[in-house]
């Protein structure tokens, strides 16, 4: 049994803790829970941008039925999950790792290029996405773009390629823009992880006769795997919900070829003025990412435990 004095102290502690947490909880409720709850409510109404003042009428799950039953919905999901997210995350991780290994290499240090390379790597990252897309749109322009001019000059193509309008090239072009702009995040994170690998481990493995590939596979990679896993998860979240790159590069076109869930939210909300339907897509995205995060953290937890 707890003594009355201790019980009083515990209660006072509890009140103190609650008081200290209250501002944060209020901020969370005001800026996260309330908008989320509002969005869920909007998704159950026929709210239109044209009638924001009047509000929308409750229509049950009609917006969800409309979204999930739409002929294009699963293609949009595929675009989001495969092209926008899976491909671009994998490319950034692989390229980021390659660049991190290069930056961490003794050869670069010997050539006194390490600082220069790190600075060069920061340039794309410091470029705002809107500027990055504008620059790449210009580079990829069929008539005036530098890339097409170079290809024509080298004789590699006879006609200019409409990179952002041709089905064969549009997704790789979008992925290229995203990778260029955001690969430094992966590189610098992985570089920090690589620098935390104890040098003695690699030296011991080398003394035992392991080559650089085997050292990387059996010593370095296991050591930085938790970083890779967390990085992959964060990049997946950032990319899955990303609107900027696709919208600015192609406007979800040509046709609806590069339409993703985020652009669909915009199109339904601000082109068709159907905010209820737009909110429903937003909720579906949140549920998808929530489920992914939960599964990922469980798998990650199991791996770390093992």
């Amino acid at each position, binding site marked *: 049994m707890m003594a009355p004095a201790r019980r009083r102290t515990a209660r006072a502690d509890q009140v103190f803790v609650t008081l200290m947490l209250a501002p944060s909880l209020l901020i969370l409720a005001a800026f996260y829970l309330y908008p989320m709850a509002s969005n869920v409510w909007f998704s159950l109404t026929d709210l239109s941008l044209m009638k924001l*003042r009047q509000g929308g009428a409750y229509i049950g799950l009609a917006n969800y039925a409309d979204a999930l039953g739409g002929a294009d919905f699963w293609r949009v999901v595929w675009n989001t999950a495969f092209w926008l997210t899976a491909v671009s995350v994998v490319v950034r991780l692989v390229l980021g790792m390659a660049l991190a290994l290069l930056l961490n290499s003794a050869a670069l240090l010997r050539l006194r290029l390490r600082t220069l390379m790190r600075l060069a790597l920061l340039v794309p990252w410091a470029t705002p996405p809107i500027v990055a897309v504008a620059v790449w749109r210009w580079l990829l322009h*069929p008539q005036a773009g530098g890339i097409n001019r170079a290809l024509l000059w080298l004789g590699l193509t006879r006609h*200019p390629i*409409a990179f952002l309008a041709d089905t064969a090239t549009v997704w790789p072009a979008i992925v290229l823009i995203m990778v260029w702009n955001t690969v430094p995040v992966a590189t610098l994170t992985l570089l920090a992880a690589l620098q935390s690998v104890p040098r003695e481990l690699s030296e011991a493995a080398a003394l035992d006769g392991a080559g650089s590939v085997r050292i990387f596979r059996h010593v370095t990679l296991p050591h930085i795997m938790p970083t890779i896993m967390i990085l992959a998860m964060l990049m997946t979240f950032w990319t899955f919900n990303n609107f900027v790159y696709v919208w600015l590069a192609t406007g979800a*076109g040509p*046709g609806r070829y590069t339409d993703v869930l985020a652009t669909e939210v915009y199109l339904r909300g601000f082109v068709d*003025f159907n905010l209820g339907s737009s909110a429903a897509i937003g909720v579906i995205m949140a549920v998808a990412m929530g489920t992914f995060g939960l599964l990922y953290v469980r798998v990650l937890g199991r791996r770390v435990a093992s």
Partner: protein
Amino acid sequence: MRLARALLAGVVAALIVWGSAARATDLTLRFNDPEVKQLRAALDVFEQQNPGIHVKLEQMPWADVMPQTLRETAVGTGPDVMHIAFVWTKDLAAAGALLPLDKYIAADGGSSDYIAMDLATGRDGHAYAVPWTVDCWTMVYRTDLLTQAGVTAIPRTWEELRAASLKVHQVTGKIGFGFPAGSGATNTMWFIANYYWWNHGKALVVSKPGGGFGLGLDQSDIAGAIRYFADYLKQGDSPKSMLAINNWGDPAIIEAMASGEQAIAIMPPANFRQIVAAWRARNPNAGDPPLLSAVMPTELPTSVVNFGGRSLGINANTQHPDAAWKLVQFLKSKPIFTDYYTSQFPARKSMLSTLNFAPGMQGYAQQLQNARSWGPYSDGPVPINTMWNATGRAFGSAFIGELSVDQASEQLLSVIRKGLQ
């Protein structure tokens, strides 16, 4: 005593300053065209003529104006005077964004002098905007390339246009009719497709005889238009790179027309002027440019396009409706179009009739006489944005082979059908 007097004088001076500041009226004008510098110069004159009224000029990309205005309306904010597209007035009025202007217009001589006043009138019959500028699209030709290709007459029908474009490409190797075939969130194909349908005597949305609105096209009409334009891309007289062009005034088109790499284009007058200016910059000592505007091809006795144009509206939430109207009156006066905003035609019959169109611009003068308003399109229940987005996507999907022509036509029809329900 001296200190007290000085303090009193200070207080009186502060009150005068505060009082005059409080009397000052601050207006915001949202203007979305590139001529910001010119308009600012005009507003400086307005401020001189109206001491106490200050006008802040803000700019926004056209694509963002409509949703932004609707968001502002919901929370009671927004600029006092708005520069809006003709076709938005009814929707903005229905959303409560615009102030009824009937009493102002009546006191100002009525509405009979305005072009396209029906588009400035809300569904409730009240006037919610003042038509400000007017234009229309026409075809634009490089006459030297047509001659070189052996095309002796300006095409009058869509089939003649098709033949001329192909001939230019086959004979000269240049681009024939290069139209902006991009479909990413723009309304380029929307205009072009409608001109094709209207000049075949049809329309996407029509008024029903018994009231209400219905579809004026069937699947074969839409498929016919898609096939017609897709053929240009297929045959190569409009290069596939046009699929990446989302704007009729894209530098790629302006440059190609000015340099003689392209023979035929479609655009409003502001872009035609850009081509002429670019040609003159290249050929400073040459005479008249080999450029000509001409009416849209048609299968009807007269060629039809829409009145393009912009209106001025006053925010329903403004605190200064009278001052805002004063600004509108100033903006629609003649000196604005002769001295400042010279790239646009005034949307007033009395002023338009006094304009002298340059020889190459005669197509615009002729086409304006037969322009029509969007009518059932803007009166009907389907938002214009939804229609242009669906039309552009359908054409784009078919152009790139993402959907068959029939599937794309059906998709467009289903969107419009759903909206009409």
